[in-house]
């Protein structure tokens, strides 16, 4: 299964969601590869992969060592492929020009090549070239906040058939978000992910510990939310193990 996760705008927490979903699926016994397509290269920090390591798929592509070599094994069944921001910084202009993520990832059938049950892409929200990668995914999550800015942006957003709007940072106490959710439930009924992720400070604190909250705070509500999202993903594949 190929999953793409993309923010509706910056700062909605798409990278944390990608990290936590990958982690939850691996806890459920699936083999998972999570790929960071963001040049900011933050995903690695969720899995305690330091910037000092220059590795990353972009770096590998540029120096012709191939992206395979740059995969980190976090657990027996969880693999992380960072962007390699600091590695890229060491390159010259010619090498830089050879990095073309959108072409690379939309033409490579990673699932078939690697044999991982799940490949999760953390897609940058501001690079429209990844549209074809997202369109080819089995599941495409568009992460949004249930607030007015997201409401307006979402209204102008071309939602594809396979795109599910996933609400992150849902604040239960706010009447506004409840109202937005009620509206979206009707407006985007088919395109709304069945569960959402509630606002939980555990997620932020977990990043300070360089771990996904789903592992570092197993009693947190975000763990419960991600578990139900991951279960839904498994159901989408058609096999629940």
């Amino acid at each position: 299964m190929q999953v793409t996760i993309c923010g509706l705008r910056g700062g909605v927490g798409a990278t944390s969601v990608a990290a936590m979903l990958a982690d939850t699926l691996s806890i459920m016994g699936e083999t998972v590869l999570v790929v960071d397509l963001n040049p900011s290269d933050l995903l690695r920090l969720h899995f305690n992969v330091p910037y000092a390591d220059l590795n990353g798929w972009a770096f590998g592509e540029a120096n012709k060592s191939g992206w395979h070599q740059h995969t980190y094994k976090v657990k027996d069944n969880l693999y992380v492929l960072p962007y390699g921001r600091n590695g890229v910084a060491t390159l010259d202009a010619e090498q830089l020009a050879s990095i073309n993520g959108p072409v690379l990832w939309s033409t490579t059938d990673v699932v078939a090549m690697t044999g991982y049950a799940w490949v999760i892409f953390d897609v940058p929200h501001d690079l429209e070239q990844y549209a074809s990668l997202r369109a080819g995914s089995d599941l495409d999550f568009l992460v949004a906040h249930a607030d007015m800015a997201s409401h307006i942006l979402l209204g102008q957003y071309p939602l594809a058939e396979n795109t599910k709007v996933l609400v992150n940072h849902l604040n239960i106490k706010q009447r506004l978000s409840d109202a937005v959710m009620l509206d979206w439930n009707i407006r985007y009924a088919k395109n709304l992910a069945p569960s959402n992720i509630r606002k939980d400070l555990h997620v932020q604190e977990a990043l300070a510990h360089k771990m996904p909250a789903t592992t570092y705070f197993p009693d947190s509500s975000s763990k419960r939310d991600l578990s139900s999202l991951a279960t839904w993903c498994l159901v989408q594949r058609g096999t629940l193990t």
Partner: protein
Amino acid sequence: MIPILLRKQYSAARRRHMGPITALIFVFLRVLAYTFLRLENSAWQGLWQQYEPWFKHLTSRKYRTADPLRYLLQAIFLVFVRTAPTEKNILFVSFKKAWSALLDQRNRLNKFLASHAKPVVAKSPLRKAFRNPRHLFKAIINKRLKIFVMVLFGTFIVFLMMLLVTQPFSLLAQFVFVLLLWAVAMVVRRVPGRFSSLMLIVLSLTISARYIWWRYTSTLNWNSKMDLAFGMILLAAETYSWIVLVLGYIQTAWPLNRKVAALPQDRNTWPTVDLMIPTYNEDLNVLKPTVYAALGMDWPTDKLRIHILDDGRRESVREFAEQAGVGYIIRANGMHAKAGNLNNALKETDADLVAIFDCDHVPSRSFLQLTVGWFLRDKKLALVQTPHHFFSPDPFERNLNHFGKQPNENALFYGLIQDGNDLWNAAFFCGSCAILKRSAVESIGGFAVETVTEDAHTALRLHRKGYNSAYLRIPMAAGLATESLSAHIGQRIRWARGMAQIFRTDNPLLGKGLGAFQRICYLNAMMHFLAGIPRIIYLIAPLAFLFFHSYIIYAPAIAIMLYVLPHMIHASLTNSATQGAYRRTFWGEIYETVLSWYIARPTTVALFFPNKGTFNVTAKGGLIEEEYFDWKMANPYIFLALLNIMGLWFGVWRLWVGPVNEQATVIITMLWVVYNLIVLGGAVGVAAEVRQTRQSHRITTSLLGDIIDASGYMYSGVLTDYSDAGVGMKLSNTTALKEDDRVELVLTRGARQFSFPGRISRNFDGNIGIHFYALSQQQQIDFVQCTFARADAWLTHNRDFTLDRPMQSFVDVLLLSLSGYQRLAQYLPFPLSWLMERLIQAVVWVLSFLPRIRPIVY
């Protein structure tokens, strides 16, 4: 070295509460034993290991003064009395082998029956007709058999039955006969499915009919006027019970188990509904959750109108109705109580359907969607009734402490009887948790006002008018049970009186419009409430023999055993098979006994003067602040128990001095008295009111929930219980939470989530309590809808019930009865209570010397 060991031994002995001297002697003996006997070697150790379980009751508790004697007695028992199952005792071994082989065979047979017999029922050609049982007879008559074949067949069967019932048997023949029937029953009862219960019913009917025939033809002593008088009284009571038994079998033989009828997709075709909440003097806190839950009912908003019918005409209720945005209907006078209140509201509203909820019955959101479908499917349908479920313990459950462990008193009615009634289109209206068709109710002139049980009478009139009724056995509302025994009895007196009134003024056996089986169902419902006098007769009948030497059953003891016991055993077996899930065997005796004295008079009065009597509102939602013994309620039973104890003394005396040929009869009668005492003990136990101090009842549940602490961390947990004032939660990690912290509880309802502010009131072992803190009205509404009004809120209430096992149930009732007497002793006035306590202690002390006849193994 040795002094340390000795000191260790000594302190160990002291720890087991031995006195200093005893401990010294103990240590000394121990040292002595070790010196001469080498207790540490394997032979001694093996011996101890083998026999230790026999002494566990002594070794596992603290040392008591006379324990050496107890050890000695136990040892003597083990050495001299117990026949060890050694190979020397061939007879014993072979018997045991044969017995276990028999049990094995029975288990295999049961398994075989369970695995093979079911499809036979499923494949039966009548199956299709059974699936729609209302048309069962029609289907049989129209499609399969000509009427005259039926008549012929029926006559033949009736003839055979008559022969079977009236044929006099010798004692031996009767013995063989009952043994055979019992064997068949024992085999059949393990077979799953309805065939087996029908079979059991047939067996029980046969035995019981033979019994009652025998009682009428050969057990009355026409030579003695006193014998005849007492015998006739008892026989009348037995005839009543026999009729109720037979009618009960008819009523419950085939519960319909009606399923939900789906509503059409097009919401425009859904009817409009007036949801009425009649109230009189109940507290606003009782009313609020009901209204809040009604506001959340799944139904198009423009088609649902909620009304509070306030017969108390209270300003506070009016204000509340306005705030909550629901209708408020009052009337000038309080004529005809609840029925009058509803009739007045009928005039002021106009929706197609009328749903009625007592103000303490919190409806679940699914109520309308699950019930209304039947109105669209069946145009003649006037009523859909659903069960009354209670989330607080009734007096029986509270005082006998079995809330949530086994079915309560009204489980039989709502679990089985109503479902059985439904087959015959005779499901009753029960006053609440029901929905009626307005046009039907108006066509009979509104709710019946003539009796104090307007509900049953209204249903009777609807049936007479040709309307249908339905019963849906899904608990979709829950309320408060009556708070005290006296209130409970008061409620039952009202029902009993009302039923007797209907029996007189609008007898279901007479008049037009009812089918034969409808008449039977109504008749049985009314007969049920006449049980008071027969029950009292049973409780004192044996005394007629013991006190006055009157032969109330004029037959030899052996014949009595051969007729009475099979009759009772078969009735118990059959009832256990058909209603075991809704009422434990023997528990009905207690329920009936408690009510008997109090309903005896009102029902009799109502039978003769049906127009007497007033309506009393059942008090609910109250507290019992101190434990007390309800002497007023228990007095009749204490009196009856004393009579029976006297009877027992007379029995002993007559065994001592009476003629030998009477002894068997005396013993049988004494057994009867003992049984009466057991039942009365249970009734007395109910009168000891256990404290009930919580204003809000905690409802145990298992729901997902989350809490957010003050700094924004959110924890997932499980909601373990809730009330309208707070909740209990189980979290896997509560270290970060402190008492008095402010938190937000998050609950889910459908796709929406709601948060409720509260404070942590306790934090212990992963369980936290949250007390709500300034909930707004909207939050109160949301909370009720997230908890009480959930569609699945009451579906699993019987999750923890165990299966009914008649013998186990009898043991339970026995223990209950003993504890009833013990509690009675506790509450006696001072010198008596002291005396009783000492007496009980003395008995327990003497019993403690008895050696254990079985080893204790875990």
